[in-house]
């Protein structure tokens, strides 16, 4: 079967080798993806036509900057489906921080590709070994009750990087209050159990919950040195409890007895899917499967490395929705000097862009209706 350009890219396991060869592969894949959505989704075609940039204009790698992008919140408001509803295998949602849910639609093609991408990325980090027996502690919603929640999906996926020995989802569905609740006591018990097992441990999920569990520990644990923590999604609703990154890492090292190099935060968006995971130096890397462009928040001009601006993300793997080029509301900056030696830019997050409270005494209707 003829492998198309997108599949070629996703199948390439040199996850962080951003050389001209891979740039070229990325361009080809993007051309295919762009044409696909442009041809199959009329409203997207209209959007691009209004924008003044269509697939025929995407000729060289440098043209990628000129591609139209969709603001990520659009996917919260509108169903922009390029494929037929029946082709959608899975709908993933994310509660997000702003109130409205995000949606990601995955068909077989997209699903297959993103799984490949994730395996390739973590393989490069040495964290992919399907025969390694591992105990999992997930600070995420129990997938039994929340299979379609983004974090639950990605953690479920991340739990397949190794062979599961035991797994525990700590945010249990409490039938009495009909809501999810962190089971702190059980989590500690599980940790104790995993410590005795001596197998590598993987802790996944939201950092705030992990912090909640370990912050008051008198005596810590001594987990296997081969243990990893993959956290992501930020502090969300517990923003006011957020502690500085270094402090958090030191605390984990102290309380769990594992090297802090094995703590890996990740940046990801449910509408985008490609993870920007930290390397052993705690720098988030861009992989060959996507590109990060930093734009001036006002003029939207592309900013050079070192300058902070809005984060734009491009990836060709998504077959379902035209989220192949999106502008996020997050601020970030790119640089190229990670001591880990990977030939890939590092994305540093600079917080969420936008105002929570408008200056002055005006209020907007949307704020009122929230």
């Amino acid at each position, binding site marked *: 079967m003829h492998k198309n350009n997108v599949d070629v890219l996703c199948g390439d396991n040199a996850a962080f080798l951003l050389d001209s060869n891979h740039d070229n592969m990325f361009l080809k894949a993007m051309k295919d993806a762009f044409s696909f959505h442009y041809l199959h989704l009329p*409203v*997207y075609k*209209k*959007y691009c036509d*209004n*924008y003044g940039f269509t697939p025929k204009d995407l000729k060289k790698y440098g043209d990628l900057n000129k591609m139209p*992008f*969709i*603001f990520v*919140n*659009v996917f919260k*408001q*509108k169903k922009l489906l390029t494929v037929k509803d029946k082709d959608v295998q899975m709908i993933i949602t994310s509660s997000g921080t702003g109130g409205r849910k995000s949606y990601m639609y995955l068909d077989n093609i997209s699903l297959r590709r993103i799984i490949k991408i994730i395996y390739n990325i973590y393989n490069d980090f040495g964290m992919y070994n399907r025969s390694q027996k591992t105990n999992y502690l997930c600070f995420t919603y129990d997938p039994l009750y929340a299979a379609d929640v983004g974090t639950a999906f990605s953690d479920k996926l991340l739990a397949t990087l190794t062979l599961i020995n035991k797994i525990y989802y700590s945010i249990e569905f409490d039938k009495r209050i009909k809501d999810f609740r962190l089971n702190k006591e059980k989590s500690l018990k599980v940790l104790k159990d995993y410590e005795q097992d001596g197998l590598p441990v993987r802790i996944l999920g939201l950092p705030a919950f992990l912090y909640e569990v370990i912050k008051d520990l008198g005596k810590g644990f001594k987990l296997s040195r081969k243990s990893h923590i993959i956290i992501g999604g930020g502090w969300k609703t517990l923003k006011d409890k957020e502690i500085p990154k270094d402090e958090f890492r030191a605390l984990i090292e102290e309380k769990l007895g594992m090297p802090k190099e094995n703590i890996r935060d990740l940046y990801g968006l449910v509408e985008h899917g490609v993870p920007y995971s930290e390397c052993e130096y705690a720098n988030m890397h861009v992989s060959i499967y996507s590109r990060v462009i930093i734009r*001036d*928040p*006002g*003029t*939207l001009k592309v900013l050079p490395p070192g300058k*902070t601006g*809005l984060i734009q993300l491009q990836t060709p793997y998504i077959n379902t929705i035209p989220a192949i080029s999106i*502008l996020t*509301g997050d*601020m970030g900056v790119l640089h190229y000097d990670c001591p880990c030696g990977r030939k890939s830019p590092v994305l540093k997050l600079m917080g969420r*862009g*936008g*105002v929570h*409270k*408008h*200056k*002055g*005494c*005006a*209020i*907007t*209707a*949307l*704020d*009122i*209706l929230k």
Partner: protein
Amino acid sequence: MHTHFVFGEFIETEDYVSLKELNGILSRAEKLRDNMPAVGIDDIIEILHKTGLRWLRKSYHLRKKALKLMPGIVGFSAEMAAEAINQMAQSLNEKNLKRKIRIQLRDRYLLDKFIFQLKERNYLKLQSLGIVSHISAGNVFAGPVDSLVQGILTKNVNVLKLSAADPVFPLLFLESLREVDKDKKIISTIAAVAFKGGTKDIEKELKKRSDCIVVWGGDETVESYRKELPVKTSLIEYGPKISFSVLTCDGLKKKGMPQAAKLIAKDIVMWEQRACSSPQVIYIESKCNKAIGAFLEALASELSAIKKNYPYPELSSDEKVEITKARLISKMDEAFGECEVLESDKDQSWTIVYDKQDKEKPSPLNRFICVKPYDDINKLAGKLKKIRYYMQTASVLANPKEFMHIVSCLVSSGIDRVTEIGKMSSGKPGSPHDGKFELEQLLRWVNIESLPERFDIMKNLQYEEVKKPALFHAIYEIFDFSRKFSPFYKNLYKGREIKTWDDFYSLPVIDKHDLYKNTPPKRNKLLTGSLSESYIFSSGGTTGAPKFSFYTYEEFEQVTDILTDTYLSAGIRNTDVVANLFVAGNLWASFMAVNAALEKIGCVTMPVAGNSDMDSIISFLSSFKANAVLGLPSIILQLAHYIEAKKIKNIKIEKILYGGEHFTVEARKYLKKVLGTKIIRSAGYASVDAGPIGYQCEHTKDTVHHVLSDYVYVQIIDPETLNPVPVGQTGEITVTLLKRKFMPLIKYRTGDSGRIIAESCHCARGDVLFELLGRCDDVVRVGSVSIYPHEIEQAFRDIPGLSHIYQLVADTKRNKDILTVRIELKDDRKVDKKALSARIKDNILKQDFELAWVLQERWLEDLFVEILPPGRIPRTGAGQRGKVKRVVDNRKIK
């Protein structure tokens, strides 16, 4: 480093103020509350006014500093910051402050003292609440200053929380206030401190120890102050608000597209849409069809053009993100065919989203406007009800027929304020804010009810205030004001200063010639401003050029208040039916002033006017059983004669208040007999130029009056030397008006002679007594008009054979005035005296229409001209060389 302002002093601290420090400040505030320095509202207004004037000066150092700092702090262009400063400074203008107080609190002196309420018949006073804490919002530029000024006007102790976003501007304002307020009358009662918002223990303490909290800000801040608020503390909330415009097709057509777009662009641009009064949505009638497209184009071009005057500010990165988001989301909606997006090319300086499907859209402000069509105003209003609490201003452009319907729909959906387009951002001083009169909320009304005799307690409460230092202060104020704003006085008082009473005594006096030469229509040198919001009255000169007097509406209102008091003290009560028989027309003041005063007393008022037909007057009086009349003596006497002659029985006039001239003793007896009158008193001593000067009480008789000492300072001077005469001695009455600022009169000669009476009155009112003793100059009032000899002289000056020796004699016949003009012949030659006297009389009546009129109306019973041989007019002093008295008044008024 944080700067704070603590009761007049700036202090700096490393950190925010601690709970302990705040408690110290609140303790000082409590002490102040219990012992508030007595500062009059006029002093407060003056200090604020002067502060405002400073801010308006381009060279003012704090203005310059603010213009340098504020754009960076609040994200305004320098032009917009200047606009905000100008508006703030304008709001402190004396006129605007007074207007605001007048509208919101009736009478500003209620803030100083108990004032008798004529209609309600009780005393009222406005008392401050005590300690008012203002929680200022981030980035509302002049908002904290506005809040503070309201606290100052209402004489509260003010504690201001400086917002973290803008801790600068309030402090600059306080610095300027400190420059003006040298005696620390105001600044000693203000603290402005920086503490961290959301600090629970500090907020708790503020709630506990303040009497009132004014909170500005978002829902969260408002809620956090609502929570656990002690019952004794009141909360005034200025939460966030939303505003919009409504345009109809007819309205647009009438205004014209370019003009409408221009005005709306201005509304959008002002304060970068961050004010609660800024429009976020323009609702346009959907049946406008094609006109909508044209409107969008016009608005786009105006929003581009307005950048010249109001450059787009440098926004924060977060604000830029908001605009970017909103634009991108709208563009996808556009691809779906839901809306159209128009935006500036290279920057974010304007965005128009024409939202055809009326979906809620993000509104990032900063010149981002949503235009939505609406079919039916009722439906629109229904939809807007969802956000009722947050609604503030709507500007409406509609034809007059639609207008009120639209407004009433919008009001039902929660709108507090309706303006024209282009006027959304500029609040009219005194208008309510967010549906409330702000000043009133910072005060409590205190009243004293059921008092049998008002003046006794009045004086007990207020006597201290009329004592000499206060009087001198009042005189100084008007002196200082006049020389600043009136070119006439500026020139007159060049190089003069008044520090003592002697300084005042040595100031030059002025007379009516000074007045008429320097006021319109001749020239405007004496007035302190141009003619606006004012009355022009004529003093009704008999011949020659009419003489005019000028009052602002506020001043005229004050006059009618005084007349109300005057009539009350003279005996008019709200149970009376009172006929106003003063003369109406010809720019005369009395008739309308009397109506206004009677209205305030609450009696039945009959605006009859003495120049009406006598039969009508009689019929009105009898039909409505008038029991009191006010008017000129000659008219009242004519009325009595008529009643007597026609043997009318059913008219009994219990009370007569007269003005303009006096009744003779005989006339009083006659009136009592014919009309059954019990009270005959002066309706007050007043002149058109000077206004009210004196009033009578139940104990004053004949021509004795009390001085209206709150309003006028009366001084008796020697007409020759112009020095003040000792108490009791006769001289010319000169007046200094303490409250007339538009046409100030300082040491103004009334032309009336009089004397101060040393004894105090039995009535205990405390106002000094004086007695009127006629005119100083050669003028006689007969039949209600003033006759000047030199004017009469013109009627015969050119007739050969007549000398220039003549005399005017006033007499009474059947209690009515008679004027006789006596003229001596040059020599003993024979003349036809009858013919000559008829010719002269004819001349007089031709040149003096008023005299002719009063004669015709028989207010003046008769006019005689006597031609006499030489030497027949009596001389005063030695024989033929003695002086001929120009005017002889044989009427007995005492």
